[in-house]
Every structure is written in structure tokens, then in C-alpha cells.
């Protein structure tokens, strides 16, 4: 058998190697956003101060730019409103599915659930072209409202699925007890179910928010100027001849920081959700 010491050393070598691999692209992005044009073009420079003199000029430039501020606002507004609506509709559907029995012929609760989740399996490109024409009919191309509606549909399956999971963990006996005490359906939902499902609601909201924030294909298809989101802005900047890495890097940092912060917070809930569905 391999001695414990050797095994532990080997473990750490692999773990540290992978950590470096994970951090390298992120480190490179952050440092590039503090480089001057000269430091980017002049070769591969790793260490600030030692190899290049850091500057906050790229950051000043992008903050002064209207396009970035507009895209940042767009992304935040579209991601949060669509996440809220997906959560609202998703919660209603999930609660209905977990507490009432539906029959549409042979189509029952479990079939409805599978149908809703299966929407998520379809590649978005299948609907993207049709949605482009539909939004054109209603003059909603390149508007926040148009993109919000599309994102709600995009996130709804996940919201229903996660919330159904959380609701099924709340014992129905609690609700029965309240019913016997004379509480109305709405009161039961508002005062008993919702507070108990709060952690689930928060997690689902943020998950949908991150999905909306990171979404690319629909945003690329349906927006170009007024409602353009951050990923589309970055893609457009990069497409220019001789892309200005220092500026795009600063924009990219702005794009990736919110989802990273949120996910660190939501991770606990997600791990629980994953464990729950696998048992």
C-alpha cells in the first residue's frame, strides 16, 4: 500500500494544480483590467508592479461610457424582474401541483410536471427565430419588456421544479391543522406555507437571476442597442478590429462579479436541493 504521507502529498499536488488552473483565467482577467495598452501589447506580463505598472484608467474609461452603464442597468433590471415573475408564476404552479390533483383526460400532475421540465431540454435556438418574428410583430424587439417575457418562460421550468421540491418537504399536516382552525386557503398559503418555503424562494429567485444575467443567445438575438445586456456588449466590443483587452476585461469583471457573489450565497440551498432530488 502507498504510505499515507506520499498519498497526502500527491493529493495536495493535484488539488493545488487544479486550483491554479481554476484561478489562472480569473487572475488574468483581473490583472488585464488594470493594464495600460502598452502592458497588454508588449508581451505576457503576470505580476503587477514587478512586470507592469497597474493603472485604473480602463476602469475610469468604462464608467464614463454610456454603453456600459446602460447595459449594466438593462442586465440588472431584466434579470431581476424576470426572476421575480418566474418565481411568482412558478410558485403558484408548484404549489398547485403539490397540493391539488389535476386531470386533463389521462394527463395528470406528474405528466404536467414532466411536460414543464421538458421545456428546458429543448435547445433555445428552436424557439429563438420564432420569438424574433413574434417580438417583431409586437414591436418588442430590443426592448426590456420583450426580453423579460422571454426570460420568464426560459426560467419557469427551473422555478416550478425547484419550488415543487421545496413544497413537498413541508408537511401537509401543518396546513390541515390551520384549516381546522378556520384559516382560509389564502391565509394558509400566506401565513404558513410561504414563510416555511422562504429559503427555497430566495434560492430559486437568485438562481433564476443568475440564469437571466448569464443568458446569451436570446439577448444576442432579441437586443442590440437599447436593451443590450452585458454579455452581448462584451461580444460586440470583442468583435471590433484590434479589441482593447484592458477595457473589455474591466467590463467582463463587472459582468462576472455579481453572479459569483450570489452563487456563493445560494450554494448551500442548491446542494440541499440536489441531494433531495437524488434520494
Amino acid at each position, binding site marked *: 500500500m502507498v504510505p499515507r504521507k506520499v498519498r497526502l502529498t500527491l*493529493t495536495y499536488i*493535484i*488539488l493545488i494544480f487544479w*486550483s491554479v*488552473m*481554476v484561478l489562472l*483565467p*480569473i487572475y*488574468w*482577467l483581473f490583472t488585464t483590467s488594470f493594464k495600460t495598452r502598452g502592458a497588454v*501589447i508588449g508581451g*505576457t506580463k503576470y505580476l503587477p508592479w514587478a512586470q507592469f505598472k497597474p493603472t485604473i484608467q480602463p476602469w475610469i474609461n468604462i464608467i464614463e461610457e454610456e454603453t456600459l452603464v446602460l447595459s449594466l442597468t438593462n442586465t440588472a433590471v431584466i434579470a431581476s424582474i424576470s426572476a421575480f415573475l418566474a418565481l411568482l*408564476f412558478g410558485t*403558484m*404552479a408548484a404549489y*398547485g401541483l403539490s397540493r391539488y390533483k*389535476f386531470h386533463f383526460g389521462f394527463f395528470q400532475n406528474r405528466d404536467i410536471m414532466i411536460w*414543464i421540465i421538458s*421545456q428546458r*431540454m*429543448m*435547445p*433555445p*435556438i*428552436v*424557439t*429563438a*427565430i*420564432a*420569438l*424574433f*418574428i*413574434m417580438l417583431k410583430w409586437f414591436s418588442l424587439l430590443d426592448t426590456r419588456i420583450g426580453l423579460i*417575457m*422571454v426570460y420568464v*418562460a426560459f426560467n419557469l*421550468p427551473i422555478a416550478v421544479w425547484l419550488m415543487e421540491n421545496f413544497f413537498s418537504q413541508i408537511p401537509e399536516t401543518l396546513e390541515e391543522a390551520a384549516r381546522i382552525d378556520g384559516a382560509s386557503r389564502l391565509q394558509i398559503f400566506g401565513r404558513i406555507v410561504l414563510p416555511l418555503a422562504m429559503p427555497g424562494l430566495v434560492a430559486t429567485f437568485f438562481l433564476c437571476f*443568475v440564469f437571466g444575467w*448569464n443568458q*446569451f*443567445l436570446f439577448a*444576442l438575438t432579441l437586443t442590440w442597442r437599447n436593451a443590450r445586456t*452585458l*454579455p452581448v456588449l*462584451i*461580444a460586440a466590443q*470583442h468583435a471590433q478590429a484590434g479589441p482593447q*483587452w484592458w477595457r473589455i*476585461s474591466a467590463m*467582463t469583471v463587472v*459582468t*462576472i462579479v455579481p*453572479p459569483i457573489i450570489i*452563487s456563493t450565497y445560494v450554494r448551500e440551498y*442548491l*446542494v440541499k436541493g*440536489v*441531494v433531495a432530488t*437524488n*434520494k
Partner: protein
Amino acid sequence: MAPAVIVLLVFTVFPFFFTIFLSFSNVNLVGGLSINFDGIQNWVRLLHDGRFWNSISNIALFVSLGVVLEYILGLSLAMLLRQKIPGREVFRVLFLMPISITPLAVGYMFRMLYHPSRGVFNNILSSLGLPTINFLGDPDLAMFFVIATDVWHWTPLIFLLLTAGLQGIPDSYLEAAQIDGANSWQRFRYIIFPQLIPTSIAAILLRSIEASKFMDKLYILTGGGPGISTETPTLFAYLSGLNNFDLAYGATIAMAFFVLVLVFFILTFLVITWFGLTQLGRA
């Protein structure tokens, strides 16, 4: 119930059938939008379009190689971090970081790293005295480096799912095996791995479904190039339909691709059921 169903009907179900209709039409955007029924023209054109079949073989390579690598790496990392070693939590948080990064940003980050002359990778290669590589500029190699980007991005998801799966294995099983004299490889082979099969199948299926939609990182990494050597069906449909505004043909590509994906996953599902791995059904 009702609002959710309405949203899905309007923004998913209707567009789906509309796309089918578009694939049998002739769409003109010049001078106002006009849509005319056009028979199976688009489908005939598609079946003879080498570019479509190229994109299908590209995505097949991307999904199969990518998901296999992600699974092997994710499993190895999850197993390594099963040991209660100092710093375990730090590694976990670190390893999960890529999941939440905007795909397009990941593409951009690797685009910088892969740069032939000022990228980090070639800098490391040349300082080691090795020849440099034109990572994304070589049609024979580009796809492999695109896959590497995806492996960086999504190995953490497999790692996360398998870590959760590992936590579900009772310690008593392993202790019993240890008492019976099983070495660590035997414990993995005969106890841990069989217990992980349902989670593994779920993780692999989930990743394969997501990977088949691939286009976001690709859009900024290579844009499908050099030539069409890395083009995926989603990107091809986007470029034809929404960049060249041949909407009907774009719809046909998307629909044909979806049919193939559907057939593939239904077959996979049947195979899984035949092998009696039905625990998945409960997942």
C-alpha cells in the same frame, strides 16, 4: 397554475410550432415581413448541406469528449476531497467558482489566454523551450481547445453533483468493507462507484443536454472557425437565420437539430431503462 401554463404556451409551445411552420415556408424581411408556404424546399436543401452535417459531427465530438473528460475530472476531484484533509472547504469553494461565471466571459477569458503571441499558454510553452501552438487558429486542433474551455467551466458541476452523491453513502458500508480487508481501490470499485451510478447518470445526462445547446463561449472563442471547423448546430442556425436573415432556413436547421437530439436522448433513456437503472426515474 394558469399563468405558468399561459407563459409556456405563448413563449415556448407556440414558438415551437411556429418554427415547424417556418421550416416549410419562405420568409422575406425586405419590405415588411412576409411568410409564404414553400413546401419541403428547406428540408431538401438541408439534407444536402454538408455544413449542417459538419455541425452535427462537431457537436457530437464536443458533447462526448467534453462530458467524458468532465466526468472523469469531476469524479477524481470529488473523491480526493472526500478525504477529511485540512483546507477541504477552501478547495471546495474554489473548485465551484467557474459554474457561476457568465459563459460569454469564460469564452473571452480563454480567448486572451489562447492568444498566439501574448497569451499565457504560449508564453509558458516557449519559456519551457517547447514549440508554441496556434490554439484556435488550427482547424484540426481548435475544437479540442474549445472543449478544454468547456471542461474548465463545467467540471465543477459534475464535481458538485458527485460530492452530494458521495455524502449519501453511509459510512458504515465503508467501515464494514475496511474490516473485511478491502483496500482503497476495492472500496471504490465495489462500494462507492456502484452507489454513485444513479447520480452519475443524472449528472452525465444533465451535462449532455446542456452541452448539446453549446454556442455562447464558442461565439467569442472562434465564431465557428477557422472556416467551419468548430461550428455547432446552434451557432449555424443562428448565423443563417439571424445573421444572414434567412429565417426559414435557420428554423429548419434548428428543428432538424432538435429532432436528432430528441431521438438521441430517447434512445439513451431507453437503454438506461433496459439496464434496470431505473432509480433515475425517481430523480
